[in-house]
């Protein structure tokens, strides 16, 4: 993955001097998403000896995306270490640790490689509290870079969130900016239940609005990159209204939050853009209030359309806001194909497709 990493690194020339992932030690300072996540882990490991981190290449080397950089050096060999290349082993042992009483934060190098651990996640972590009548619990976090827009091809681009939102007992969290990334990761580590924490790798080094031919700006310029070095929480289960608007509600998460904002601007539509931040538990109140106000709803995600989380969102909006709707709920998503390499920008649901959908719902839909 070195070439993908290099490509992302090239977007942040101004930060080349310092290790990518080491955050400022105090005060509020601009951080990219990698630094913010690193800072969250650093805060929690300093505060709580039961927090430890492991995964493939996450120890000495600090992770292929640098999220766990310097943690081993700072907190010790047994606090942040390397794991064998076995996703089921990583998650299975973490479940054992969590039931022992620790709070492991494990990394799956790419969400595309989480499937070997699927049995452990679905059959074990998710059901631990329920099936044991509360005797055993599983407070653990599975971090994993996810999403496309990086020429990652089939197995470095996937968005498998709906495979986890469908499972009772799992929480699913997806940040879209450094401030939320840190606060949500801290809340996830402190949560008493297993959390799947997907990190949009396209956003690691800067916001990306889908206009791929334009130069990418670094996080530094963004208000949401002003991150406190100290510990803070962003609550799980609360969405963030990124842009207030009156004409249409856009529901998005991860990279698509920025694409949605760009799409709304391109269409010239007064859209209310909601960053869901957590898919389970979902902030249904914020969604409902917004759609009842606007009367229209567009759902945007990178994952394929069929049985994607957008289907659930559309159904919920339809069930709860039916008499307020002035147009069909519309989904802008990845296609029902594997994620292709050469056709990156035809596959990736960019701002043009979002703008087209917005114009369509403003004229009553298809």
């Amino acid at each position, binding site marked *: 993955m070195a070439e993908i990493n290099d490509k992302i690194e090239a977007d942040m020339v101004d930060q080349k001097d310092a290790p990518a992932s080491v955050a400022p030690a105090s005060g509020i300072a601009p951080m990219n998403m990698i630094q913010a996540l690193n800072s969250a882990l650093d805060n929690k490991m300093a505060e709580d000896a039961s927090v430890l981190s492991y995964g493939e290449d996450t120890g000495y080397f600090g992770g292929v995306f640098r999220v766990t950089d310097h943690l081993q050096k700072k907190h010790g060999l047994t606090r942040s270490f390397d794991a064998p290349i076995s996703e089921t*082993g990583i998650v299975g*042992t973490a479940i*054992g640790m969590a039931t022992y009483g620790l709070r492991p934060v494990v990394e799956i190098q790419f969400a595309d490689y989480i499937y070997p651990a699927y049995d452990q996640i679905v059959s074990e972590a998710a059901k631990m509290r329920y*099936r044991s009548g509360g005797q055993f*619990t599983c407070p653990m976090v599975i971090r994993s870079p996810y999403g496309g827009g990086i020429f990652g091809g089939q197995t470095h681009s996937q968005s498998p969130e709906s495979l986890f939102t469908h499972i009772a*007992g799992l929480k699913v969290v997806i940040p879209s900016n450094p401030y939320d990334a840190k606060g949500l990761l801290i809340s996830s580590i402190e949560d008493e*239940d297993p959390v799947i924490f997907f990190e949009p790798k396209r956003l690691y080094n800067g916001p990306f609005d889908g206009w791929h031919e334009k130069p990418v700006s670094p996080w530094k310029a963004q208000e949401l990159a002003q991150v406190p070095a100290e510990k803070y929480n962003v609550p799980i289960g609360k969405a963030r209204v990124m842009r207030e608007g009156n004409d249409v509600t856009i529901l998005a998460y991860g990279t698509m939050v920025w694409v949605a904002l760009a799409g709304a601007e391109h269409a010239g539509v007064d859209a209310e853009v909601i960053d869901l931040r957590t898919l389970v538990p979902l902030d249904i109140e914020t969604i409902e209030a917004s759609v009842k106000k606007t009367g229209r709803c567009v759902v945007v995600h990178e994952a394929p359309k069929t049985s994607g989380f957008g289907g659930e969102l559309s159904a919920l909006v339809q069930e709860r806001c039916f008499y307020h709707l002035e147009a069909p709920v519309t989904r802008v998503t990845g296609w029902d194909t594997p994620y292709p390499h050469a056709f990156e920008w035809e596959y990736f649901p960019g701002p043009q497709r979002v703008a087209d959908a917005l114009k369509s719902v403003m004229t009553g839909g298809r």
Partner: protein
Amino acid sequence: MKNTPPLSLRVPEPSGRPGDKPDFSHLKLDAAGAVDRPAVDTTPADMRDMAFSLIRVLDDEGNAVGPWNPRLDADTMRRGLKAMILTRAFDDRMHRAHRQGKTSFYMKCTGEEAIAVAQGMVLNREDMGFPTYRQQGLLIARGYPLASMMNQIYSNAADPIKGRQLPIMYSAKDYGFFTISGNLGTQFVQAVGWAMGSAYKGDNKIAAAWIGDGSTAESDFHSALTFASVYKAPVILNIVNNQWAISSFQGFAGGQETTFASKGIGYGLPTLRVDGNDFLAVWAATEWAEERARTNQGATLIEIFTYRGAPHSTSDDPSRYRPGDEHEHWPLGDPLERLKQHLIKIGEWSQEQHTAAEAEAVEQVRAAAKESEAIGTLGQSRPSVKEMFEEVFAEPDWRLVEQRREVGV
């Protein structure tokens, strides 16, 4: 490579099918006392032979012989024997309860009682056992209330896990008994993680895990051995080779070409292979592995060689895939009979005491059944339907609250 014969696919076949005469002549069984006992700090490389031999203590005459004799006092052995008798009585009663329609499902451990009972007695209650569905002897040896086991089997109002699990999928944290999952092999790697957690914390607890011969084919078996070896986790990894995985003989898990114990060698783990119907041998091997784990020398893999005497479950009819009398011909005999014979031989037990102990066990099970059935059997009593929605998460989210209201509870 001209003129090579056409390739052919080998499909393993067991030594006997229904109607055949049971044949165990292919088994290579060491005599009791014949296998050396390496020091606990022996390197795995220096004890590879252990994977291909069989640790046995009790000989055919009921003498405890050789270097693996754990030299237990008579009281401990009597307690072990009584726990095995109780386990068998419990199994018989619950198997009957299924036939009477009092529950939907049951699984016996007939012939395998020595394993869970001995190991449950060797390990501390603070250690965590990660059992399969066939180690009920762990609970029974540790004095877990039989009525609570039955309440779980009946899914009644007093079920400790609130009617959410299939019968026999017990969970008893306070007894060092991890929640049982239907998904095979998953607990093997979790035990390694639990042990890693204990080591990480500088604790003195160890973990023990069990897996059947069939489930060693699952990928979690490989992951467990890899992680146990890499991180030197304080865990005892037990493979209970009872020859059968439902209808598949152990050859389908790779047991025809080598021993299951030998699989530990490739992972650099010390490995023992033990007669599972010999209470004293199981005890001794477990004690060896326990000391190794407890002294920070890492994991041990133990193949426990036995025979599944009963049907796989109440839903299974073994007469359709193996000789009906195969269990009677198992060359390692019956674990209860063998310990009984030893205790009698050394003058610490008698047929009269044994008969009385069996009657007492039946009575103990009957009393527990009375207590449990007074609450109710399957369908007569159950936990509140509210419990269906509880403990999905620490706190229910709005969906669960709404759905619970929809059900009206």
